[in-house]
């Protein structure tokens, strides 16, 4: 039970970090595409979604394992 409680806490705290990180990366991409100009809206939105998804995939395990280590005091 103690272990499960800890796991849930880790999941919650990690999500609070990796979601903003990936949303930030996606927004940055959208902003850059808009500033450069010449891209149709679908390309900008599609690119934003893809960059956001990949950023989520990259940041999720890194942040989760770091938060887990912190929670366990390692």
């Amino acid at each position, binding site marked *: 039970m*103690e*272990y499960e409680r*800890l796991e849930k806490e880790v*999941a919650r705290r*990690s999500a609070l970090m990796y979601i903003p990180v990936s949303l930030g*990366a996606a927004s940055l*991409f959208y902003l*850059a*595409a808009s500033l*450069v100009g010449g*891209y*149709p*809206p*679908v*390309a900008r939105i*599609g*690119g934003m979604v*893809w*960059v956001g*998804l*990949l*950023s989520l*995939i*990259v940041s*999720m*395990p*890194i*942040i*989760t*394992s770091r938060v*887990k280590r*912190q*929670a*366990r*005091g*390692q």
Partner: protein
Amino acid sequence: MNESTLNLTLPITGMTCASCVSHVEGALKELSGVKQVIVNLATNKANLVYDPKQVGLADMQRAVESVGYSVPTTELTLDVGGMTCASCVAHVEAALNELPGVNEAVVNLGLGNARVTYIPGVVTTSAMKRAVSEVGYEASERSEGADALDRERQVREDEIKRQGRNLIIAGTIGLIVMIGTFYDMLGPLKAFVPEFLSYKWVIGLLTTPIVFGPGRQFFTNSWRGLKHGVTDMNLLYATGIGAAYGIAVINTLFPKAGFGGEGATFFESAALLTAFIILGRWLEALTRGRTSEAIRKLMKLQPKIARLIRDGKEEEIPADEVEIGDLILVRPGEGIPVDGAVIEGYSAVDESMLTGESLPVEKKAGDTVIGGTLNKTGAFKFTATRVGKDTALAQIIKLVEDAQASKAPIQKLADWVAGHFILGVHMLAVVVFIFWFFFGYRWFFDPNSRFILSPYALGEIGVFGFSLLLSVTVLVISCPCAVGLATPSAMMAGTGKAAEHGVLFKGAEAIENTSKLQTIVFDKTGTLTKGEPSVTDVVISNQRSVTSDTDHLLRLAAIAEKNSEHPLGEAIVQGAEARGLVIGEAERFNSIPGHGVEAQVEGRAVLLGNRKLMLERAVDFSPLMAQAEALEADGKTVMFVAIDGQPSGLIAVADTLKEYTTEAIQRLHRLGIETAMITGDNRRTAEAIARHVGIDRALAEVLPQDKAEEVKKLQALGKKVSMVGDGVNDAPALAQADVGMAIGSGTDVAKETGDVILIKDDIQDVVVAIEVAKATMRKVKQNLFWAFVYNILGIPLGAGLFYPFISLIISPELAGLLMAISSVTVTLNTLLLKGFKPTIRHGDRPQRGAGEPKSRLSPVATSSD
């Protein structure tokens, strides 16, 4: 207890009284972060409340151990299903190691299991299974022996069946999708294909069940892993298939949406990518089990039935019900069910499957038999001496399993690389996407460019579709599945192959170290030599000897020595017996302590002893002195024989070399390995023996307790050193060496020290061990080369690095096929190890008797003028 603290019950062993309780409590309380400790002597447990941010279980264990007590641990093997690559290994290990109470988890991809060392009571088996299942794999407790064999086979067969079914679905529909996609290119064959198959929405409808049926496993597994902060290659596939399918759906439903329109519908990519990945999984499942065939072969050796003799009647019972002391009958052609001692009958037994000895070994009353070996010719009865887990076969299986479950340093590195590779690949996919989106498309895109092995031009594909395509291809082509398989599959095949030849490696690290050996140090007595003196030379004096026959001289000497208890006397008697000479009784016998013996034999006065004795008795041996000195220079002990007061001859006694010693040393030299001999003998004798055998270096006058120091000195010269000994007084040296080889252990392997166990008392097996280790490591390196070559060449190709020059890109489905081929290449390359044969041809060895190998007495009979 507040939010940040946890409760824990820790088992403690070694406590005997109240003061022990206070010691343990004191040690634990000293740890910062431990809020409360109550130690109970009756239950041998400590209840703690602690803050996990400040103190870990490992700290508590150390604290308990520092005051002289211990936290008991136990070991468990879990079968883990669903692992496909090195990153899976890292995830399962991480999931288990994260559990409080787990000290160590080692996962073997090839065997599909995890060996967990844990603190009982702190963590449960079900918690371990749940942790494994939460990261996307299935775990179950491992059963023993034949059950494990059946279970492993069942799991493998289920996986082959499951992926086979998936392959049929994905392959068949994928083929239709491909035909539909390339409908315009079919030419006259169009007549046989309905046109509606080329409609995008039909292709989409056909692809959907592939992605959500056989392809679903990639999405569910990767999501389960992601939730726990782990990424595996399922994620690469899921993002690849998902992106290809998603864009194709959008382009079909909304062709004007700007994703590249109909020209960029990647349904065939999604369908064929899924089919090829599943083809790879299916081929892997088919071939992977074969690399662990050795262990299955060993398990199969165990006969299921034993023929028990009870109250004089024969009765068939299951072999695992045999108890120590039971009387068992074995008929010709039958397997021997357990270990035992023959009490009646005579036969030849094929022990090749356990010892590697190719010729059948004779068995008669008093000899031992090994369970799992095969009776060839006669029938015999034996008493069971070791049953169940204690049999030689069970011990060997355990040792091989443990070795296969361990990790070589090179494997740890490969696992680490593969484990971090996937995150790196996703980062690369972002970089590739951004580059092609913002720069590459504008600078290099050519509408006439096409996919490799495809006639279709990329045409109207837009910037997003093109960049996404290259990004997805990078994800698919980078899968490190072959990297993960490269080392464990070869290690499994290598340990199994070695076991077939009676060489047992205690771990993968032992194989890796053995392959790097530069110097091998042999203990002399009992390793290079038989450890018991025997007659080596008989020299006759031609001048005044009463006999001119070496056998006659030896026989007279043996009769004179028959009642002697001196080892040299016994050697002479045994030497005569070995020649088949009849040794009668002396008429009179007198021992002269420290000098020799005198006896009356067949009416003659025989005087036998050292030089001093002959001087005292004024027997002039000057004509034979040159030969006596030459023999002594060869490290032999010379006995002078005078008959009727006349110098009649010399008998040289020495600890004789084992069979094939010289050949083994020559083979080691051919492998470029330096050899050394360690002995307590004086330098002259040691050097003489070393010279005779061809050993490069003699380490003489070394006391048993200093052997380890000598090994250390060689290591200090930067050499990788192996020590080969019989393990009796060599244990410290075996432990000090980079690889300790215990020779001639017989089949009681569990008791042996050393990293490598040579079951037979045959020094040539040192060569076998080195050759197998070198072959295995060669295979590991080849596998890693092939695995990395695919990735190193594939990633730039997938990322479009060559696109500006060749206007060709690789499609995701071709990337999937290449990755499937890489895994299969590695596994097939490993399977080539099955055909490996050591350079020693075991078939050339002479047949041995039932007991110890007989001395091959070949005295040098010379005469003196």
